[in-house]
């Protein structure tokens, strides 16, 4: 990227960075606030988890997308990250799936 930016260009981005920064601060306060409210059915906190993860993912998207310039990154980086994402999801999903009681032949 570095070569394509003139000085002028970069200074234009500064405002954007500051907006992201503000959004991240708001996001943080939001998660904490959301954790004190109970969403969904009475004795399940599934929806709380969903809400928290949605906020966290949004924040992660902002950091990765703008601070780390992923939004305008090269295809090569996207493909590397796509594979990594696939494998990490595979690791999590398959491990958890295979350890589900339904998939383990054992009776407690």
């Amino acid at each position, binding site marked *: 990227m570095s070569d394509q930016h003139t000085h002028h260009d970069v200074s234009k981005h500064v405002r954007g960075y500051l907006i992201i920064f503000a959004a991240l601060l708001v996001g943080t306060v939001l998660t904490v606030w959301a954790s004190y409210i109970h969403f969904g059915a009475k004795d399940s906190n599934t929806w709380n988890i969903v809400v928290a993860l949605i906020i966290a993912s949004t924040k992660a998207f902002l950091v990765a997308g703008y601070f780390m310039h992923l939004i305008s990154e090269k295809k*090569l980086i996207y493909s590397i990250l796509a*594979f*990594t994402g696939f*494998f990490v999801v*595979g*690791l999590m999903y*398959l*491990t958890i*799936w*295979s*350890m589900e009681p*339904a*998939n*383990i*032949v*054992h009776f407690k």
Partner: protein
Amino acid sequence: MQHTNQDSHHQEHAHHEPGFWAKYIFSTDHKVIGIQYAITSLIFLFIGFSLIMAMRWQLAYPGKPIPIIGGLLQQALGDAAAGGVMSPDLYNAFGAMHGTIMVFLGIVPLAFAAFGNFVVPLQIGAVDMAFPRINMASYQSFVVGGVIMMVSFFIPGGAAQAGWTSYSPLATIIPTQGQTFWIIGMVFLITSSLLGAVNFIVTIIQMRAPGMNWMRMPFFVWAQFVTAFLLLLAFPPLEAAALMQLMDKVADTSFFLPTGLVISGQVLPISGGGSPLLWQHLFWFLGHPEVYVLILPAMGIVCEVITNNSRKPIWGYKSLVYSSLAIGFLSFIVWAHHMYLTGMGTKISTFFQTTTMIISIPSVIILTCFFISLWGGSIRFNTPMLFCLAFLPMFGIGGLTGLPLGFNYSDIFLHDTYYVIAHFHYIVAPGTIFALFAGIYYWYPKATGRHMSEFWGKVHFWLSLLCMNLIFQPMFVQGMAGLNRRLYDGGATYAGSGEGIIGIPQFFIDLNKMISHAAWLLAIVQIPFIINFFWSIRNGRKVASDNPWDATTLEWQTPTPPPHGNFIEVPNVYRGPYEYSVPGHKADFTPQNEPEPGTHKTAKPSPK
């Protein structure tokens, strides 16, 4: 060089002749680092082999003092080898360390780091690796990891004893610190591999010479490329697991320890709540990609040598490339075929069986391409070629015997028997090790400017081939009869421990003696190789030219040995890697950087 005058980046090597330390120990030159890796990992291979030779004595003659080195062992290791006899603990330690050393300190550094370092930058026409200093750090981290592993033999209680797979809870509850050393050693080795992997990938993507586009890369480079990705993405979960096991050992956590463990009559004072299966998942998530790390570089070497010595292009270059990519991709989702017997339900085992069967297909395709490439060739039987030709059926046997293991229902019987041992040793010993021998004989002239002796090379080959088969073929028979691995008495107890009890027939246990003798013979026939290796550095036949094998790939288009910076002039690449016997050409090989007659245009830098 194109960018020479860009900036005044200071390079000390360019200005004065570096001293011994800078040149050989703290070198950042990829070729020197490659050779450092090669020598170090050969030494580790030798150590790994020595361990198994001692173990094979115990298997053949359980409870008898080990001749010659028994006394030494007792002095060095104390009670574990009292009277020169191998104790069960020592057997387990040697077994675990044999696996660990062979895999992580022998084959991976030799096949990936050593050959990759020496050959890859040359083959793609680069001046060095992308990050020379990280390259050096990678080697140093490897040495530190290796030293920690070696030291662990001599601490009280000895080295790790829970197999190279280090299953918890066993690995955690063994009271000695060998396992802690193992974990810390592994962290260094993992770091080394990660640094190496990043370096290789960046080098291959960024440093290809002009015209060296993806489909013109030698298959060896592709193989290293896929291997680097396997290391990069599969190792971190093992690192995570190692950290957790370390916590279990030193901070009394219970990541892999379930509630209610009772060790020799005592309830273990831990919180519990962990899962032993979690370790297995994380281990095999690395473990399976790791086995392809052991084989892909070997396949790469085989491809180079076979095309060169059959004097014709590889058959199905694209299939090779896509198959190796497919193997790389699929190898991340087959791991639980090592865990069929951990109480797996139907759905999940169906998934892993199916992926296991699918992943065997690209291997079949790769092998098929190699076989068909021979058809129509003009085959020269020199030492490297012999090793590669032997690789094919040997890998074939090893790979095919993976199939009955891959079906869960037949694995019920074969799991943890010598059938498994024979399966993977056929792949890694007469497979990978042979390919690595081929690589050594093949690239030796480039590194030293001299040939190794052909005669002794052939002696080494034929006798090794014989011994390997004498060692591992009977293991299939033993495994089929139900003999288990990791038994320090060679199976004597399970032969039927009393009158009328049906156990393993004695015949199959007696095979151990024959196998052991073959293993020691194998050691003896390595002597010509070792002598040949060192003797030829000074006394071997000088190479007739920079390209003694009449090869096409770029590493042969440099001076011998290549200087710092590799190429006198950055090569331009005009064609694919294996243009042998091109119709209408005078020579039976057309180097990648030889301009087409009549054209003077320089090719565009890698269009695709």
